[in-house]
């Protein structure tokens, strides 16, 4: 348990650094799609809800978990969908000139 905790903290710290480095290089042009994309990725929380619902430990957990799956899945589907729609619109003037 203790080791797991330390491992997790290391992972968290490293992921934050990677996040800062990667996001810093995102063009300000794309800040809106960036936000909808990170939103979709963040909805990976759905996997926690899936396990909770699947284990059926209590009715309470199953009910809350199912609502959680609905909420997160709508972010996954909606988030990727709208990010894709946005990015399709970004065109350069160079190719058609």
């Amino acid at each position, binding site marked *: *348990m203790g080791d797991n905790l330390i491992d*997790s903290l290391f*992972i*968290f710290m490293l*992921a*934050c650094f*990677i*996040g800062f480095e*990667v*996001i810093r*290089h995102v063009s*300000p*042009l*794309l*800040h*809106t*799609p*960036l*936000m*909808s*994309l*990170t*939103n*979709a*990725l*963040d909805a*990976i*929380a*759905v996997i*926690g*809800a*899936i*396990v909770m*619902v*699947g*284990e059926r430990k*209590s009715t309470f*957990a*199953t009910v*809350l*978990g*199912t*609502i*959680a*799956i609905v909420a*997160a899945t*709508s*972010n*996954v*589907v*909606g*988030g990727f*969908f*709208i990010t*894709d*729609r946005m*990015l399709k*619109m*970004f*065109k350069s003037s160079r190719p058609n000139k």
Partner: protein
Amino acid sequence: MNQFAGSQYVIEAIYLIASALFIFSLKWMSSPKTARHGIWAGEIGMLLAIAGTLLHHGIIDYKWIAVGLVLGSGIGIPLGMVQMTAVPQRTALSHAFGALCVTLVGTAEFYLRTPNVPRFMMSVLSMEVILGGLTFTGSLMAAGKLQEILPQRPITYKGQNLVNFLLFGVAVVSAVYLVLHPEASYLFPLILGISVVFGVLLVIPIGGADMPTVISLLNGYAGLSAAAMGFVLQNKLLIIAGALDGSSGLILSVIMSKAMNRSFTNVLFGAFGQVQAAASGGAEAKPVHSATAEESAAILSAANKVVIVPGYGMAVAQAQHKVRELYDILTKKGIDVRFAIHPVAGRMPGHMNVLLAEADIPYDRLIEMDEINGDFPQTDVALVIGANDVTNPAARSDQSSPIFGMPILDVDKAHTVMVIKRGMSPGFAGIDNPLYYLDNTLMLFGDAKQFVGAIVRELSGGH
């Protein structure tokens, strides 16, 4: 038992791949050329992770999982099809959904484990629920304000900050007590309840112009709460995804608050609207120069370099497609037309870029503030459409102005400034704009869409 362990290794391997794909996904967002690969990487990572999770040996019943996935997809599709002008409120709503998921799982996890919750787990669990709860209601409030279901003006009252601090303090103290005394499970609903109320109180005093910062901040909180959930569930993929999302939200909110020359605390506890009474008094009857569409068309066609400055007003008037026609017709005449994008123009980071891209304006014509500011003295016409505070020269010179120090687009340095505006009312921040009274400024009074349309008609008929 061996078989179980085996499937666990497969799942961990899949999560490892998904983590790498998520990082690639964000990395490819660095340029519009590779950005769509980024979506594919994200989608594949997500599909793998969900499919892998379904292999989890503890899962004995798939019925409600399937119900949740199907219902969620059913809600997600229309949410992915909203108009581009509605993207800010959609984004706020999706932060609310993400936070809802995290909060519900955290709550259920607590009641499954109580009263035997180890201290460390209880502390991350409280963080998960506090951040999740306040992000849920805070984002709903933000979405309501953006959708104009709720008033956009800041709502403030005496002692607001004190009330907020006290409430938040009670939640944190209760959480600490619960960590030390896990049997005090009656505190959990209190912590959850306060977080939910706190989210509402946090966003109530925030006005429309501050929305880009607030949305980014809520984005960051949503990510951090997901990372906390990863700690609770000992799920490394979740920790990584949450950390990525959290750092993204925090970086964006730093960029946004810098672009408004304000600190985080100032955005959250400052309630911008309070200063307006002092600032807008005595600025009533100064003369302005106005022009008709015909005159503006003549000036534009005589120009060599034109910079268009779009703001939220352009989005409200749905004028972006007319602006595209204007761009086309001027470009055909050999005039160099570019767009100057202020970081906080619009209601969320990058909002203007998306609206203009939707109207088919090439992205290499959209120029960031720092890059274009030096070009204004060589610009013949700066055409301001629905932007106000981000062009206010008082931010450079008037120390008494509430926006003093905020980086602005130096449109006043252009040879001619044209401002399309409905009337002389001040902007969202309620601050008078001296730009309108300059000798080189022409006010074009009218609806942005109609006025740009009228200019386009003059330009296409007039040669």
